[in-house]
């Protein structure tokens, strides 16, 4: 039984990993076809993963409503809005617009989801500004450099900033395209090396945390 529970998953990972790594080096139409198929397979399997996540959300809020915990009314609102969106989406066949005419699902998207999402992220502007005011103090040379770079980039991205500091536009572009790009590149190289090392460990069974705990 341990073979089925522990060894077979490791074997599946090994075979799948080696096959997909080898696929990159085989420039044959069959190899390309395999990549296309497996990519489609991953999308399909990913859909089932969503079922797991959503059912967890359902469970948490259903328990809150059942026990009438504090704020259960908000869980009820969440349930109603979710089921309402699903019902409207199914009725509209998952299309926001048909022949240029907005469907009921499109109405939900345009007049509920977009304003809510946009505003939710927009209020972060206030909190970022407030946090920056409290924490951005040029206490050290490094903090001063960070502050100056932030101010130049902010000024360089609006017409008023460019009007007040004429050089800020070019300077902002230079910071983003050269200095920022070099740091991003270095971080990307480091992260990629880590990704490759982790992938090798997973394929050869040295990293097994993805199998979860529980009984062998």
């Amino acid at each position, binding site marked *: 039984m341990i073979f089925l529970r522990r060894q077979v998953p490791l074997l599946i990972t090994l075979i799948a990993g080696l096959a997909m790594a080898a696929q990159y080096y085989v420039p044959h139409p069959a190899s390309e076809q395999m990549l296309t198929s497996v990519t489609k397979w991953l999308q399909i399997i990913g859909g089932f993963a969503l079922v797991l996540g959503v059912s967890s959300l359902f469970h948490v809020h259903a328990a809150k409503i059942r026990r009438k915990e504090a704020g259960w009314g908000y869980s009820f609102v969440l349930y109603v809005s979710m089921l309402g969106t699903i019902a409207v*989406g199914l009725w509209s066949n998952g299309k926001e617009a048909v022949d240029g005419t907005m469907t009921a699902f499109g109405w939900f998207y345009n007049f509920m989801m977009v304003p809510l999402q946009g505003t*939710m992220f927009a209020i972060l502007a206030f909190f970022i500004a407030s946090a920056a005011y409290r924490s951005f103090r040029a206490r050290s040379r490094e903090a001063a450099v960070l502050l100056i770079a932030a101010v130049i980039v902010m000024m360089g991205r609006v017409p008023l900033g460019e009007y007040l500091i004429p050089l800020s536009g070019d300077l902002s572009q230079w910071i983003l395209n050269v200095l920022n790009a070099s740091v991003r590149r270095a971080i990307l190289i480091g992260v990629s090396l880590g990704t490759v090392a982790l992938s090798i460990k997973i394929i050869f069974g040295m990293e097994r945390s993805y199998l979860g705990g529980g009984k062998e």
Partner: protein
Amino acid sequence: MSIETIIGGWVATGLTLFIFTFLYKDNPLFKLAENLYVGVSVGYTIIKTYDTVVVQLIWKPIVENGEWALLIPVAIGTLMLTRYVPKAAWISRYAFAFIVGVGSGLAIPRTISSFILKQIEDTVRPLLTLVPGEGVTFTWNLLNPASSLNTIIILVGVSSVLFYFFFSVEHTGPGKVVARIGIMFLMIAFGAAFGYTVMARMSLLIGRLTDLIEFTDPSYGRPSLWLAGLTILTLVVMARRSSSKQPKTEE
């Protein structure tokens, strides 16, 4: 203007104002909008996934084209659902093993090619360029990311930042200087990222405020003005009720 657009304008305005009330303090109006947002977003994701995965990737190819091989990923995906049966939960490992194995296998050559070799190739570029008629030149133009001067700056930046994160060697002597240069580059990048994020959020804020201004139009029935007043009134009433409920502290 159609009635659904007018109703949509009122709903969008109301929800926008409810979220903005969080700037005053956490309150029931914000919580209502917040939970509505989660519900609508999850519902939207479910429908989009259903349409993309179930309809477009499974149902249509199988029924219309007879691609029966697609039942294999469906079976693998179904294995994931065995997590709901405690005794059979271990079977879901097969599905996770397949996803993780394929993901790891795909990642190795592509990451090396696109994110390591390509990035190094773009970092280590020739310093001098051969221009016909002008001969070998060294370009000083800072505004051109491909200029010779910027090539040196990028090379110094990438090397010093990589060295800063390399902990197998103690950062002393010349190594300390290189690591310090790396920190400076990092600080500039963090500052730039911060500034860029702030401006992106500001752009979203301007978008929301533009919508609110648009919805002050009489053709919509001025929802921005009416609902702003109503929201403020509700907040005042709630603040008064909560202050009257608080027990009086003894002097």
